[in-house]
C-alpha cells in the first residue's frame, strides 16, 4: 500500500478542438483517503474524472491510478481496469432501465469476471445499504434516493479500491443526503476503498478527510465554459 491511490504530475488535457481544460502540476490522493473535490461548473471536474477512470486519453504528463500508468494501458486494459478496480456513481440515472435492481448491482461482475462476486455478497451489500427488499424490483419503480443507493451498491460490490462519486447527492433532499453519505463512508471503510467525492455543495465537505478545490490545483480553469 505504498502507492498512492491517485498521482498526477504535470497533466495537461484539452479536447481535440478547444482550450486546455486541465493543467495540473501535482495531485496526490493517498489510499483509503476520503476526499471531497469541489469546484464550479466548467472547472474541469468531469474531465478530470474521465481521465482518472481511463475513459479520456490524449493527456500529457503522468497519470497513475492505483499504481497503474494510465498512459501505458491499452484501451481494453483500461476498460478491464475500470471494471475491476473502480466503482463509479453518477449524479443521476445510474441504472440500466431494463434490468432489475439485482441485475444492475451484479452487472459489473458479469462483465468482468475478476469483479464477480457471489449473489450472497450482492445481497449483503444491498442489505448494508438498506435496499435488500428492492432486489427484484424494476429500477423504474424506485425513488431517486433508492436509485442512488442501488448505484452505490453496484459501485461497492467487489470492494473496489477506488470509488468515484460524481455529485451523487445533488438530487437528494437534505435527510437523504446525510444518510446516503453515512452509508457510503461506512461501506468504504468496510471495503477499505479510497473515496473521491465530487460536489459543488460545500455543506458536505466537513465530513471528509480532505477538501480539494479544483480551482486551486487546476491552473487551466478560470474562464472556460462547461465541457
Amino acid at each position, binding site marked *: 500500500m505504498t502507492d498512492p491511490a491517485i498521482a498526477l504530475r504535470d497533466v495537461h488535457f484539452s479536447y481535440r478542438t478547444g482550450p486546455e481544460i486541465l493543467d495540473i502540476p501535482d495531485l496526490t490522493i493517498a489510499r483509503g483517503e476520503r476526499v471531497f473535490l469541489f469546484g464550479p461548473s466548467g472547472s474541469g471536474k*468531469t474531465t478530470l*474524472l*474521465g481521465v482518472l*477512470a481511463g*475513459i*479520456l486519453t490524449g493527456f500529457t504528463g503522468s497519470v497513475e491510478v492505483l499504481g497503474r500508468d494510465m498512459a501505458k494501458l491499452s*484501451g*481494453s486494459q483500461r*476498460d*478491464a*481496469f*475500470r*471494471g*475491476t478496480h*473502480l466503482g*463509479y456513481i*453518477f*449524479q*443521476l*440515472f*445510474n*441504472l*440500466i*432501465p*431494463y*434490468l432489475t435492481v439485482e*441485475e444492475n448491482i451484479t*452487472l*459489473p461482475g*458479469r*462483465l*468482468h469476471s475478476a*469483479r464477480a462476486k457471489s449473489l450472497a455478497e450482492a445481497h449483503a451489500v444491498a442489505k448494508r445499504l438498506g435496499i435488500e427488499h428492492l432486489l427484484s424490483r424494476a429500477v423504474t419503480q424506485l425513488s431517486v434516493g433508492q436509485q442512488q443507493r442501488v448505484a452505490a451498491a*453496484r459501485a461497492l460490490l467487489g470492494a473496489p479500491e477506488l470509488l468515484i462519486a*460524481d455529485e451523487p447527492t445533488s438530487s437528494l433532499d437534505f435527510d437523504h443526503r446525510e444518510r446516503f453519505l453515512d452509508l457510503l463512508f461506512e461501506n468504504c471503510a468496510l471495503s477499505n476503498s479510497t473515496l473521491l467525492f465530487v460536489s459543488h455543495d460545500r455543506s458536505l465537505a466537513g465530513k471528509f478527510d480532505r477538501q480539494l478545490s479544483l480551482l486551486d490545483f487546476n491552473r487551466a480553469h478560470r474562464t472556460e465554459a462547461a465541457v
Partner: protein
Amino acid sequence: MVLLSLAWKSLRNRLLTTSLTVLSIGLSMALLLGVENVRVGARESFANTISQTDLIVGARGGSLQLLLYSVFRIGQATNNVSYESYLHWKNHPAVSWTIPYSLGDSHRGFRVVGTTEDFYQHLRFRRDRKIEFASGRSPKDVFDLVLGSDVAQSLGYKLGDKVVISHGIAAGRGIADNDHKDKPFTVTGILAKTSTPVDRSLYIQLEGITAVHIDWADGAPPMPGEETPAAKITKENMKVEQITSFLLRCKTRMATLQLQREINTYPEEPMQAIIPGVTLQELWRTIGYAEDALQVVTIFVILVGLLGMLVSLYTSLNERRREMAILRAIGAGPGKIIALLVLESGLLSLAGCALGVVMIYGLSIIFQPIVEQQFGLYVPVQPPTVTGWIYLGSVLIAGLLIGFVPAWKAYRNTLADGLSVRV
C-alpha cells in the same frame, strides 16, 4: 452471454418498436418466401401439367409447337396424323395406353377437343391425379359434349344445354358462317377443376369432330341445304380419318427412347414424338425471366424491411446514450457496446425471419385452396427450399451487418460523451 441477455432485455424493454420492427422484417421475409413458394409452385404446376405421359406424338414439325397445342391448347398443328398410323402405335406391343386429340374447332374462344374415353381414363396431371366429373358423365354419343370447369364457369352452361361449335380457333365469337350450327351438341358432363389447361377446353368424341365436318370440302362449309341432317348421323357411321396428335404411355419407361426413335423414323408417315418433360423444361427456361423480375421486387421489399430496423435502432440511440455511459463506467469497452447493438439487430432479424417462416406457413395453409381455385396455381406447403434457406441466411447476415451502423454511431457517441451526462 451477458451481452446476449442485455440485448434481449433491452429489446424487450422497447416492446413496441421491437415488435413493429420484427413485424416489418417478418412480413417482408414472408413475402420473399411466399414469392419463392409461388415460383416453385408455378414451376411444379407447369411441369406437372401433364404426367405419366411418356411421349407426345404428332405430325412432323416443331417440338415446342407440338407441346403447345397438345398440352396447352396454344397455336395449332400444321399437319394431322392419319387414324391408321394412330391405330398402328396404339396397338404397338410396347404401348400401354394412348389418348388421341383432334383439334381445330372452338366455342367462344375455348378450344374444342375431340378425344375418346381414354382421355377420361388415362390422363394424369400433378403426378397421379386423374380427370374427375363435377357432374354428369363422359360423352357416349356423337353429339355429347363435356365442359372443362373454367368453360362451364365462365359461360355458365349447365347439363343439357345446347352448344354450337365453330370451325377454326378464332378468339371470341367465331365467324358466324363457320358455326356448325346445324349440328348442336348437348352438355352431358362438367369436369372438376384440375388447375391445368384441361379446364379451358370442351371435349367431344372423335366422331363428333368428323360429324360436324362431314359435308365440308376443302375447308369450306357445305352450301345451305346440302348439309347431312344431324338426325342421320350415328356414332357407328362416322368414320374417323385423322387426328391431330396423341399422348402415349409405354409399358416400361425403358421402352420410351426406343419407341421415340421408332416413331420418328416411321416410314409410312412423317411423324415426331417428344418427351414432354424435356420440352416443358425448354419452354420454362424461355418464360422464366418473369420469375426473376418477381424476385428482384421482393429483394427490394426485404431491403426496405431491414432499413426499417436500421432506422428504429438508430433513432433509439439518442435516448440510450445514458445507458451506454453507464456501461462504459462499469467497464464495458467500445467493443462490447458495438457487440451489444449488433446482437440486438441480429436478434431482431432472427425473430423477423422466424416470424416470416411461421407466417408463410400459416398463410400457405389458409390460402392454398383459394389460390388453387382462383389462379390454378398449386402452391406447396413445405419447409423452406434451398433458395428459401439462402434467403433466410442472407437476411440474418444482412441484419447483423446493418447492426454495425448504429453500433458505430453508439461507439462514436461513447467516445464523445465519455462518462459525462448528456441526456
